[in-house]
């Protein structure tokens, strides 16, 4: 479930799950107007290592040229309702507008949601079950037709046709809006009565339970407008109707895509985007070495779907000129081992804590690529999500995070296993799985915990039915498993709900792998569905983190980072925390106008 292109090769869905739309700061209610980066108060710099993580690099108003992107694999879909890859959500900003959007600003500032097509943030009732939005006037699709709130409603209705429109995070919307509606294809005469459009510029969402983060849901491409007359159902992703400043001019699946300017897009209606280039191209280059070579030679401007390979990283770091055009930001994705409390002797908390203290996080980071691959994680909340606490480390495990063996032995004695115990480690025989097994076997073996690898017979179903099935965990007597997580939207609720709430436990396809049932966690998440005050949201986020860490069921070890290189000719370039700290493609320009 990594978001770098190396890992995505074998984890398409996992990477999709790792959307890593990292969060911080902004409230669900958003606030006021936003500004395009070139006109914003964001710091502007001429470059430098990591400069684009916190500032707009090479700010310029120069227009024209083509932004040339490359990716190791094509987008999962250009249908806004069906895409789930992080970088494809970023790509969607080129041609898809939504009621709300992530602010066009560097780093954490970009995790705030601001009005896009809407005139302002959602107006909610007291218990956050009703959300009303008003559309700006003068919004048009690329074909010249007017965008209305009926199109937004229809876009949401499509999400219910899950036998056709699947792959995206539809369940957020469907679970809040109806239990019975079958979607516009199976039930053409039906109506999603929980969403009303009193007029063409007003839309009201009546939720079946409170949801304070609703503005964030309205910022995801999943909630984009779709004109019913242009809905080609399963084929819609081949040529979606554009509402943003660009529109697809050619699309060859698995090969390339090109966008040109949408003549019917009006800058006056868009405070999120300030496009500079005339065209954007995306070419699929499947060989990572070739991809890096093209990037470094200037044949492409950016790798859209991830960072460069380790050998390229080393060569960039060794050259100060190149290093000045590189960034190494956090992605909002965290890697951890799940410690299954449903299997003895790990049902004893002290035994789980022994694992925590004996664990060698440094070794795991080395396996994942060293310092540029991420920061050692001491708690679960990623850097950009509200609730992250610098220095919070409830299980300090020794110098350099290599393990506190004395503490581990003490915990073993406390749990009645002074000589250690046997433990099954679930892994996939692909990617870093075998290396992780070897490392965990070695470092837990130092205190007598004997690790036995249990390989998932089908790597593809590792998350869904191997460690995603609570009954299988007990049946296979699994003790530990490698996993990772990134939030779909950057709020504490967005990060925690699926992996910690007891009401999210599923018989299969479960993401609350340890089957955590904690009253504090559940009640705090419930409170988060009604809270929009940023300070209180952050406090509640910390409460969940503390409670989860106290349960000792998730053993975090790495906060992922990606190593990017940007072509020096690019202007107005910055990493947007709202789109997983990828570069904000829609606002990038070129200094040479080429």
């Amino acid at each position, binding site marked *: 479930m990594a978001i770098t292109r190396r890992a995505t090769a074998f984890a398409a869905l996992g990477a999709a799950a790792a959307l890593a739309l990292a969060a911080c700061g902004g409230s669900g209610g958003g606030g006021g107007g936003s500004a395009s980066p070139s006109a914003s108060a964001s710091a502007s710099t001429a470059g430098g290592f990591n400069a684009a993580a916190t500032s707009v690099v090479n700010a310029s108003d120069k227009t024209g040229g083509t932004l040339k992107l490359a990716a190791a694999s094509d987008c999962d879909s250009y249908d806004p309702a069906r895409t789930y890859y992080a970088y494809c959500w970023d790509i969607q900003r080129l041609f898809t507008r939504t009621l709300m959007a992530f602010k066009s600003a560097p780093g954490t500032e970009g995790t705030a949601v601001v009005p896009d097509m809407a005139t302002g943030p959602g107006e909610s009732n007291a218990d956050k079950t009703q959300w009303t939005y008003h559309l700006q006037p003068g919004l048009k699709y690329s074909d010249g037709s007017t965008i209305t709130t009926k199109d937004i409603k229809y876009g949401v209705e499509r999400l219910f046709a899950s*036998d056709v429109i699947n792959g995206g995070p539809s*369940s957020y919307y469907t*679970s809040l809006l109806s239990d019975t509606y079958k979607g516009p294809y199976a039930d053409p005469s039906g109506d999603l009565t929980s969403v009303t459009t009193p007029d063409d510029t007003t839309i009201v969402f009546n939720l079946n339970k409170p949801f304070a983060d609703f503005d964030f849901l309205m910022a995801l491409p999943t909630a984009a407008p779709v004109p019913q007359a242009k809905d080609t159902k399963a084929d819609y992703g081949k040529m979606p109707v554009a509402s943003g400043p660009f529109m697809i001019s050619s699309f060859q699946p698995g*090969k390339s895509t090109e966008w040109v300017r949408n003549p019917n897009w009006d800058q006056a209606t868009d405070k999120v985007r300030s496009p500079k280039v005339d065209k954007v191209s995306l070419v699929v280059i499947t060989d990572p070495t*070739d991809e890096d070579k093209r990037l470094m030679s200037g*044949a492409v401007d950016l790798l859209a779907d991830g960072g460069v390979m380790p050998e390229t990283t080393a060569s960039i770091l060794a050259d100060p000129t190149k290093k000045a055009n590189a960034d190494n930001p956090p992605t909002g994705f965290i890697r951890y081992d799940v410690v299954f409390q449903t299997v003895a002797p790990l049902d004893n908390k002290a035994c789980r804590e022994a694992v925590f203290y004996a664990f060698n996080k440094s070794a795991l980071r080395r396996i994942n690529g060293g310092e540029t691959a991420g920061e050692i994680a001491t708690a679960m909340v990623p850097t950009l999500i509200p609730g992250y606490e610098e220095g919070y480390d409830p299980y300090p495990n020794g110098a350099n995070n290599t393990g506190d063996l004395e503490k581990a032995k003490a915990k073993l004695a406390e749990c009645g296993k002074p000589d250690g115990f046997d433990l099954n480690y679930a892994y996939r025989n692909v990617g870093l799985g075998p290396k992780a097994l070897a490392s965990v076997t070695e470092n837990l073996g130092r205190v007598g915990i004997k690790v036995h690898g249990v390989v998932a*017979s089908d790597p593809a179903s590792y998350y869904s039915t191997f460690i995603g099935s609570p009954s299988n965990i007990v049946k296979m007597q699994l003790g530990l498993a490698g996993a990772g997580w990134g939030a779909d939207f950057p709020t504490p609720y967005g990060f925690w709900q*699926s992996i910690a709430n007891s009401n999210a436990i599923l018989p299969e396809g479960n993401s609350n792998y340890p089957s955590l049932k904690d009253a504090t966690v559940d009640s705090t998440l419930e409170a988060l569905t009604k809270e929009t005050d940023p300070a209180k949201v952050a406090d509640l986020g910390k409460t969940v983190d503390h409670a989860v860490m106290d349960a000792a069921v998730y053993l975090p070890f790495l906060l992922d980072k990606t190593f990017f290189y940007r072509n020096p000719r690019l202007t107005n370039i910055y990493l947007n925390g709202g789109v997983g700290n990828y570069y904000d493609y829609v606002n990038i320009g070129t200094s040479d106008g080429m």
Partner: protein
Amino acid sequence: MVRYIIRRLLGAIAVLFIVSLVTFGLFMVVPVMTGSSPAYLYAGKNPTPELIANIEHGLGLDRPIPEQFYIYMKGIVAGRTDLTDGTADGSRPCPAPCFGYSFRYQSPVWDIIKDRFPVTLSVTVGAAIIWLVLGIGVGVLSALRRGGFADRASMVFILLFLSLPSYLFAILLLYVFVYGLKWLPPTQYVPLSENPVQWFQALILAWITIGFGNAALYARLTRANMLETMSEDYIRTAVAKGLPRKTVVRKHAMRAALTPILTIAGLDIAFLLGGAIFVEKVFSLPGLGLLFVEAIGKQDLPVIMGLTIVSSLFIVVANIVVDVLYSAVDPRVRLS
């Protein structure tokens, strides 16, 4: 001859049926037996049981397995109309040969294969010309100049390209000609009909990679066959009767020596048509090989199944064609 071809065709159909059965079992039945469902691959995060049921229905996975297999085979032979994609009547036509619908590519599998095949065909034809001309040429020359400079030089050629891993050779070519000397632009496949020059530029390194590697093998085989044939009594007789050396070599020696090469070439070409996986990946050529890699990475079962069956078809057909041609080239072989 006709009876032979009919018999072989019937055999081919049986082979393809077995391949389809095994492929279907491997990808559709085994996951079910291990407690998984292909529907999870399409469902995204945290799929509810209802969502999984919906997707299973869309894929037809809620039907009995024998019925699923029947529908799959019927689709290949006669097409299908039951693939759900949200069209007005809840189905979309999928004319034969229908290998199902790819939810990853959001397109019928056959359409994807048709779209990618010209790339693989381009790679195969160009590479085959190189390896056949170069390999047979070097092999014949080496045999006729046995022990001489040409023979020793060809031995170096053979050893070099047989021992040089093709992945290394491909990357080497890429570095030297694209990024070093910059004689070629970074690979971007363009159809022949669109721009022949760019088409050639995109493929030349792939042709060289496959062509030179195979040429070394073919040169070795050709040389060995030629040396053996040239020592046959009938060749000595032909020479003794005063036939010109050129005639002896071309009409008698080469014809016999190259017959086994024909068999191997047919199968190699057929194998390559199924997708030159490594070369297509290194040079980012969007052919069937790359599609196979992508489909595995994306766990796109319908595409993997379709490609497996199509690749098998190439091999089976090539076998028949080679056997028929074999009899034409070598009259000593009786089809009956």
